[in-house]
C-alpha cells in the first residue's frame, strides 16, 4: 500500500514518476494508518456512523483496542486525542504533514546533496518563484537530492525536490526557476493531494470503514486498487500541461526569461531514450515534444509584449 501512495504523490514530478513494481515500507503509510485509526475511534465513540465496530466484542479490531475495557470512557482510551485527518477538506497543516511524510521517505531513498550553499541557493530561487503564486504563504522548502536521474518532485504543502542529475543539466537560473515553477504549480493546484483525496473518499466512506476494521492492509488495498490503476491515474497529462503553463508564468512573473522551462524540456527531449536516467520519465509522462508543442499552443502571442526577462547564467550555483 505504501508503494501505491508513494508513487501517487511523486507521480507529478516534473519529468518522471516512480512506478514501483512492488510494495514497500515507506513511513507515509503511517499517516494513512493514523487517519484510519482516528476514523475508527470516531466510529467507536459514537460518531456519525452506527457500526458493528462499536460492539465491544468485535474481535476484528485489536489494532485499535486499548487494554482498557471498552466500557471505559473513550476519552481516556484515545487521549491525547489525535485530530482526525480530514480527507474531505484537509487543512493546510494536514497538507504539510502529508507532504512531509512523502518527502521524508524520498529523502530516505536519496539524501540531500551535501552542499549547504547549493541547498540555500535553490531555496532562494524557489522561494522567490513561489512568492509569485497564490500560495506564497506556504512554508516552501526546496532541495537537491543525490540522484543522477533527471527528475523533480513536488509533495503537498510546499515540498519540492530536484535531482542532482537534472540540476547539472541546467545552464541558467532562469532554467532552474522554470523547473521549480512547474513543481510549485503542482502544489498550488494540489494535483497530488486531489488524486489521493479521490482515492480516500472512494474507498474510505464512513459506512464502509466499519466493515474493514482491523484489516488494515486489505483496507488499503481495497481503497487504493491495484498498482496499475494508480499508475494510470498518476499519468494525468492535463495536470502536467497545466503545471508547464503555470510554471512558465510563475518564472516569468519572477522576472526570469520565460523560456527557461522550455529550454530544459528541450534538453530532456535530446536525452537518449534508452538512458536509464530518463527511463521512467519517458515511459510514464507526456513526451517532451508534446509538452513543448502544448506550451507553444498556449503561449501563442500572449507573451509578445512582455519585457525580456533575465537568464542569470552567471548566478547559477555551480556544483563541484
Amino acid at each position: 500500500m505504501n508503494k501505491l501512495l508513494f508513487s501517487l504523490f511523486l507521480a507529478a514530478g516534473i519529468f518522471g514518476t516512480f512506478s514501483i513494481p512492488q510494495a514497500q515500507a515507506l513511513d507515509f503509510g503511517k499517516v494513512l494508518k493514523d487517519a484510519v485509526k482516528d476514523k475508527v475511534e470516531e466510529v467507536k465513540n459514537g460518531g456519525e456512523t452506527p457500526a458493528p465496530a462499536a460492539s465491544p466484542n468485535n474481535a476484528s479490531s485489536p489494532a485499535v483496542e486499548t487494554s482498557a475495557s471498552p466500557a471505559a470512557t473513550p476519552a481516556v482510551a484515545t487521549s491525547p486525542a489525535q485530530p482526525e485527518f480530514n480527507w474531505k477538506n484537509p487543512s493546510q497543516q494536514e497538507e504539510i504533514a502529508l507532504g512531509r511524510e512523502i518527502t521524508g521517505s524520498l529523502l530516505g531513498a536519496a539524501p540531500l546533496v551535501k552542499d549547504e550553499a547549493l541547498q540555500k541557493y535553490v531555496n532562494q530561487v524557489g522561494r522567490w518563484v513561489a512568492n509569485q503564486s497564490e500560495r506564497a504563504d506556504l512554508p516552501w522548502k526546496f532541495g537537491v537530492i543525490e540522484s543522477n536521474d533527471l527528475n523533480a518532485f513536488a509533495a503537498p504543502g510546499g515540498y519540492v525536490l530536484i535531482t542532482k542529475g537534472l540540476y547539472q543539466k541546467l545552464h541558467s537560473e532562469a532554467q532552474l526557476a522554470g523547473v521549480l515553477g512547474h513543481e510549485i504549480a503542482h502544489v498550488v493546484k494540489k494535483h497530488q493531494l486531489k488524486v489521493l483525496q479521490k482515492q480516500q473518499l472512494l474507498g474510505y466512506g464512513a459506512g464502509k470503514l466499519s466493515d474493514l476494521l482491523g484489516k488494515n492492509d486489505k483496507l488499503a488495498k481495497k481503497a487504493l486498487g491495484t498498482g496499475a490503476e494508480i499508475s494510470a491515474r498518476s499519468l494525468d497529462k492535463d495536470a502536467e500541461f497545466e503545471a508547464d503553463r503555470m510554471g512558465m508564468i510563475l518564472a516569468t512573473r519572477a522576472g526570469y526569461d520565460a523560456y527557461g522551462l522550455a529550454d530544459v524540456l528541450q534538453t530532456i527531449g535530446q536525452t537518449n531514450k534508452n538512458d536509464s536516467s530518463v527511463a521512467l520519465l519517458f515511459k510514464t509522462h507526456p513526451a517532451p515534444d508534446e509538452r513543448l508543442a502544448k506550451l507553444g499552443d498556449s503561449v501563442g502571442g500572449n507573451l509578445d509584449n512582455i519585457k525580456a526577462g533575465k537568464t542569470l547564467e552567471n548566478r547559477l550555483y555551480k556544483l563541484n
Partner: protein
Amino acid sequence: MRNCLKLLILIGLATSLASPILGLAGDAGTALKTDTIRAEPFADAKTVGSLAKNDAVDILTKKGAWLQIKTKKSAGWVRLLSVKRGASSSANNGKGVIDVASGRAGTGQVVSTTGIRGLSAEDLKAAKFNEEEMKKMESHTLSARDGQSFASAGGLNAVKLAYLKGAK
C-alpha cells in the same frame, strides 16, 4: 601571475559564451507544429514561408522568443516553441540502438543500483523516512522576504502577468 589570471578569465568568458542555452548556429531541429515563417522576429513581420509538422530545419540563431531557421524551401523566423532541437524522433531511435550496441545505455543501468546514480525501484523499496535529512531540508526554509532580497540582489523585478489558458 596577472596575465595568467587574465588568461583564465578570458578562457572562462569564452567557455561561457560557447556554452549553449541553445546550441550553436546550424543545429538540426524539427518542427513540432505548423507555423508561419516570418522575415523578422516579430508577430507582424512579413510572411516568407510556412513550416509543416516534422519538417527538418537548421537552427541558425535565437533572438528572444524567436528562432532563425532554414528549411529546404525557405528561411526566416519562427516562434521558439514551434521547433524542437535535434533531428526527428526516428533518427533519435537510431542513435539509441547504437548506444545500446556500444554498451553505453547499459552502463547507467548497472550503476543505478548503487542508489546514488538513480532512483531505482530497489532504492525506493528500501526507503525509510529519514528524519535527519528532513530536518536538514527544513533548516533551509526561507521566508517570502528572503526571496525578495535574493531577487533584488539579482536585479529581478516581479512582473504582473496572467496565467495562460490551456489550448485545446
